[in-house]
């Protein structure tokens, strides 16, 4: 489990993850918000259905893909977390892409 360090005091925000509320801080990426809430498996792979979570957290590895507000294949490490955002784990290739 990751814990929040002293001094990292920023405005609290609330995200929804698969129906439940999770607490995060303004300035977090979606990946940081999920990890802070103890969620470390972000998706399953298309070929073998294996669980995956973030690896590089800098936009290079594409392992942290999640569904953000209904849009799949978003890089959780690059999307800033916002109050009220709906996050869901992504199964395989995720749902078809639709305009938000």
């Amino acid at each position: 489990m990751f814990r929040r360090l002293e001094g990292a005091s920023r405005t609290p925000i609330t995200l929804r993850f698969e129906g439940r509320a999770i607490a995060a801080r303004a300035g977090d990426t979606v990946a940081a918000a999920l990890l802070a809430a103890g969620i470390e498996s972000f998706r399953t792979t298309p070929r073998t259905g294996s669980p995956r979570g973030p690896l590089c957290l800098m936009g290079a590895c594409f392992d942290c893909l999640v569904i953000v507000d209904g849009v799949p294949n978003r890089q959780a490490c690059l999307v800033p977390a916002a109050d009220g955002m709906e996050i869901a784990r992504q199964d395989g290739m995720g749902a078809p892409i639709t305009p938000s």
Partner: protein
Amino acid sequence: MTDLVVIGAGPAGLAAAACAAEGGLDVLLLDENPAPGGQVWRGLARASRAQLSTLGIDNAGARAAVARLEGTSARYRPGATVWQLAPGEGGIELGYTAEGRAHLVEIPQVIVATGAQERPFPIPGWTLPGVLTAGGAQTLMKGAGLVAEGAILAGSGPLLYLLAVQMIAAGAPPKALLDTGTTAARRRAVRHLPAALRSPAPLLKGLAWRRAIRRAGVAHIEAVSHLAIEGDARAEAIRWRTEASEEGRLEAQHFFLHQGVIPATNLTMAAGLRHAWNDAQLCWQPVTDRWGRTSTPTIRVAGDGGGIEGWEAAEARGEIAALDALHTAGRLGASDRDRAAEAPMRLRTAATRLRPFLDALYRPAPQFLVPEAPETVVCRCEEITAGELAPLVTMGLLGPNQLKSFSRAGMGACQGRYCGLTVQAMIAARTGRSLAETGYYRLRPPVKPVRRWSVAARRSRQASLRPSSPWASSALTS
């Protein structure tokens, strides 16, 4: 009218954008991240004093660089992903997405400052949740103030030690540090020591880090020659063997891996720029002159994306590339440019004195470049293992591109960023050819996935742009 686009807002990009804007150019700075600083200064420009002291980090450099940029007319655009860079007839064609909308523009000059990524470190279990790169773990600390308790660090390189020291400072010392540095590399590094001692500060810092790790009681195991992470739904334990055949196993929730950094070359490679194999750093890098000019001189590369030299050199290289861009734009005479570049060039030389020593000392051991265990996932995106790839090489698929066509390795979303060097090394090891000769994947734009509806949302005035590449004409009209 934009005169210059700078890609990446790390030390090199911030310096380049500020310097070029100060010289009178209309500069657009595009960065994929939500805030400036790149990886090394991630989150630092806006970090609170309490946060900095917890991590034992000084942010003076980051603050100064961001303040300098803010004092100029340069436009800074965070959250902008560049997916195409191509030399065109009317300038450099640049494709990027920002706020869900794709843009395709032509720009007279571009400075690429996309920095580095961590080297692929394929070991069994490295795909399990709970396994992060050391850089990723550091990003969480700096960007979100998140630290893992009782994590295990494994691999090689200064960043691994820096992370350990920062975790200790934050009150969450790692459970163990498994160092894969080899005795052979240490012997080879010794001959570079005299040159390194001319700028001894970083060496002394390194020694202080080792002392801090010892004092904190972190289990420090050296000369680790084999590693495997175990777990089912997530990472649970790490197993190792040392050069002296001592074996061990430790359980933890988090494992932070590091095997050095390499230039992020997907964009420059897809642009068709010339690249060369750097055998000292075991990576590809664009061929540049001392101003950072690539084989297309109006595209310059500054910072670690042009070869790993560290952030201090990166800042200097940003400045140098911008001065040369000002010269090309007719804003700065050759002698003025040369005079202005003297100081940053000196700084760069001083900042890189340690490099040959570091490159030799932290050269990855062969078994971490070419995975030995057949179950090791090589291509994380397409989930192709070493055991699946090896017979294809033996069968006679002797190039990375052939192997890619047959196996799908390198065809996933990351576009080879985390398997390209491994595939290249596997082929070289089996054929006996050199790494340089073996070559790399042929990369094509878009270098990052582009959503079709973001392209459809392009403004109509940009839609009239003459397509100058086959990809642009097909994808942008579909």
